[in-house]
């Protein structure tokens, strides 16, 4: 079998630098989504309407998501086998998919309708889903390619 070397693995620095980009990207994407969530929950930015806040953070959320996913894909490419065998990674991907779909369907609809329907539930669910994505990301590093459920 021919082995193709991933150029990312040639430098020790590429992985940590990508991780930093990944962290700053999710501060943008998850951070702006959380801002809308806190508004829906009535915990912050109360002078603004949720619909305004949603529209005005839209591009920062999208930009953050794209940069987060691209840097994530590159991180994944450095050692796909390790991630493939990692159940925290699988969970993270499921929650990521759920969180993104939720964000652009129910979350969007709730935020854009003034007054928002089911605002508190939607804000809470959104925060929960993104929280799970973050938890999954951390746990990847703590389960080195073992499918060990015995420790739970």
């Amino acid at each position, binding site marked *: 079998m021919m082995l193709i070397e991933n150029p990312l693995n040639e430098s020790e620095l590429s992985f*940590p630098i990508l991780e930093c980009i990944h962290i700053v990207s999710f501060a943008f994407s998850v*951070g702006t989504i959380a801002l809308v969530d806190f508004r829906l929950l009535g915990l*912050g*930015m109360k*002078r603004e309407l949720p619909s305004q806040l949603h529209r*005005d953070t839209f591009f920062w959320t999208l930009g953050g998501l794209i940069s987060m996913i691209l840097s994530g894909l590159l991180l994944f490419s450095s050692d796909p086998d390790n991630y493939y065998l990692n159940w925290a990674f699988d969970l993270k991907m499921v929650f990521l998919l759920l969180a993104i779909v939720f964000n652009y369907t129910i979350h969007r609809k709730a935020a854009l309708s003034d007054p928002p329907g089911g605002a508190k539930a939607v804000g809470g669910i959104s925060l929960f889903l993104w929280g799970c994505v973050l938890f999954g990301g951390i746990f990847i*590093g703590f389960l080195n390619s073992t499918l060990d459920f015995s420790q739970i």
Partner: protein
Amino acid sequence: MLLSLALWVQATDFFTYLRGSGYAYPIVLSMHMVGIAFFGGMILMTDMRILGLAMKKYPVSDVVDQLRIPKRWGFLLAGTCGFLLFCCKAEEYYYNIFFRLKLTLFFLIFVHAMTFRGSVYAKAGEFDKRGIPGRAKVAAVLSLVLWAGVACMGRGIGYIEPPWGIHAQLFDLLHL
């Protein structure tokens, strides 16, 4: 003195447990990340608003004033978790160059806050009428650089493996 304090705190029952636990430690680390994501975003948006790059339709004071309290809660969450993580491996962190750089950045953030609090962040209401002055933009750029630096240094901490290289050797040599 600092090192013996570090040795003492990581040897306590609680932190010995946390360090060795399969799940509690990563949960605290995850909470640290949640703090970064939810509330780091608020810092970014505040600075972006001051720079005129985001949420331009809102008065600067709306963004600065309304995010002040949520940001404090966020800092408390990330800070508490960070402190717990530090206590688990206090000796390692003591020698860790990235941890030292991170603390240095926190000190600079403190200086930044003391410098600009009165002249920028407390006066956001004036910017609504008269436009955003240069010193506010300087404060925003510095804040972005410092906080991004904190995130990157934090990530760097994990990359220094015991026995912590030249630093530990130097400290041993000097009997510190």
